[in-house]
């Protein structure tokens, strides 16, 4: 077995298992903590409140756009760019089609890859600059915040370097960095990619039933 076969074989399957099972456990464990039923008489539907919170908190609202425009723009640049790369980059589509499931969509053209990569890098770098320079985010940040950013950055960077598939080593480096990210993911704050939904639904239901979804 070559090094590449090992990285794309056993290591990949191990990283995937840790990623999937880790996230599943992280979410299940939160549900398993449980909570008592709210005995107050609701004014409005908690289900509507939950749905509203999921949608409302995807964009600045309540007159706060001006105050949060930096995070809004850079956050969306990064996340849209990253997901576009993840799901539509030609090597990813080929990899998923070959080993996981046949995707019902085509790969994006090269020019779209460039735009998505630029958006993702710009967003991530600008968010990180903010984390390092703003007194509030500097105060709030811990090791996990920095490790998560750097692992993501390295995975994206090695992905761009491996795009042309000119050197097997670059592809190996990208696979390794992605696997490191997948293994780290469930134990870190990166799980906000899933838990954001829980938090929004919980607040939307709890406060929406009072009559206003914040």
């Amino acid at each position, binding site marked *: 077995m070559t090094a590449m076969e090992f990285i794309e074989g056993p290591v990949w399957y191990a990283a995937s298992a840790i990623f999937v099972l880790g996230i599943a456990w992280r979410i299940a464990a939160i549900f398993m903590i449980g*909570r008592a039923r709210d*005995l107050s008489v609701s004014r409005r539907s908690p289900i509507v409140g939950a749905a509203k919170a999921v949608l409302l*908190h995807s964009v600045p609202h309540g007159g706060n756009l001006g105050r949060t425009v930096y*995070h809004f723009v850079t956050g969306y640049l990064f996340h849209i760019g990253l997901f576009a790369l993840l799901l539509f980059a030609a090597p990813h589509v080929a990899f998923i089609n070959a080993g996981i499931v046949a995707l019902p969509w085509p790969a994006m053209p090269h020019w779209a890859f460039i735009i998505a990569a630029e958006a993702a890098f710009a967003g991530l770098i600008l968010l990180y600059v903010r984390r390092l320079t703003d007194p509030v985010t500097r105060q709030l940040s811990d090791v996990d915040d920095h490790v998560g950013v750097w692992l993501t950055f390295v995975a994206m960077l090695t992905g761009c370097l491996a795009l042309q598939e000119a050197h097997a080593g670059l592809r190996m480096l990208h696979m390794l960095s992605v696997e490191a990210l997948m293994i780290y993911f469930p134990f870190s704050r990166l799980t906000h990619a899933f838990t954001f939904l829980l938090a929004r639904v919980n607040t939307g239901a709890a406060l929406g039933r*009072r009559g*206003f979804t914040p």
Partner: protein
Amino acid sequence: MTSAASAIADAPARSINVQAAVDKFNALTNAHIASYLDACVHCGQCAQACHFHEVTRDPRRVPAMKLAPITKVYRRHKAPFAGLRRTLGLAPELSRKDLEEWEELIFDSCTMCGRCTVVCPMAIDIASVVALSRQAFVAAGLGPPDLLQAADNARDRGSPLGVTREVLKDRVEWLADEHETEIRLDKPKADVLLLISSIELMKYPRSVVAMAKLLNHAGVDWTLSSRGYESTNFGFLAGKPDVARTLIARITEAAEALGARTVIVPECGHAFGVLRWSGANILGRPLPYEVRHITEFLAQHKRDGRLRFKPIDTSMTYHDPCQISRRGGATADARYLLDGVASDFREMTPTGNYNWCCGGGGGVQALGRAAEVRHEVFRIKMRQVSETGAAMMVSACSNCRLTMDESKAALGWDGELESLVELLAVHLDDTASSAPRPAR
């Protein structure tokens, strides 16, 4: 160092039971709270919505910072992979130093107004986490002495300001005579139990008279009860759940004895929030009555045609108490009451559910050491009112009113502050007849 931090640092050495705080944090962390602690990405956007950060620019006075003590306990004890983190030494235990350093943030720097939730991309309800955190700090033996004393006064003497049953009877008798208004106390049976806040009775007694006048005019079958009269719940604000339960039980027993179907909370935001939305949960059973804020109740009677008001020419704006509007769901009622009454009504920006807090909610009003920062917060309100050009600011919370009155005096602001019920009572259209309900 802020005056609050200095006061804490200068306080005599206290015995701190860290384990008690850890146990309490663990006991109070339910699935909702866990989802919040797992979702925060430390983006710091909540700072943009917090009045304490707005006026101090202190990077510690940020809502997300207040999640730190409970998060530390959660990650070590209850979070997924907590055992792994402990084994690897990645989840240190909460320390005495943590509790000492966070006390000011949890008690003095949060009014639990919930404005940060609006701006949070994860929608984390930090106010509810702060309320729980206070219980853990108090279990450890911490908490501001004046806030804790207010809770003990409420438990032992009937009210945080010492309004005992005797004082209540004396004040009600005096007010009824002075204002020639019938103020019903201890009727044996009534449809409606009216509560008062001791802030009103002692500092703004006209507010009690105004409520009596409006309810009498609307033909409501109501009474005050010396068995349960205090609406404020300093047990909740001070992190003393046993006191919170006692105070809710008193109101409930009084309402049950009267056969009251409705309990009206007067102009007090947190009193409404605690009884309406947490009362049943604290008591452990559904409340056997409906809870209405006075603005909700009066708005209903205006809709029914039982209350009519004469127009007021003075230009005015309305300050939304956070626990009645943003966290209470009754934002529209005050405006409905003012509709057609305030001839020149002007909204602040932002307003309604997004309004800035007065700076004194969540028990912060009771903290002498927080006065300085409260006054700074009031500058936001001064600016907001000034931008409307309104001559008068009206509100429906005596705690907001007291906070703003004190800051107004401290800063020499010449704007006019008014209570909504007092304003309505003065402008009641006496020519319109009410249709009284049959007496029970």
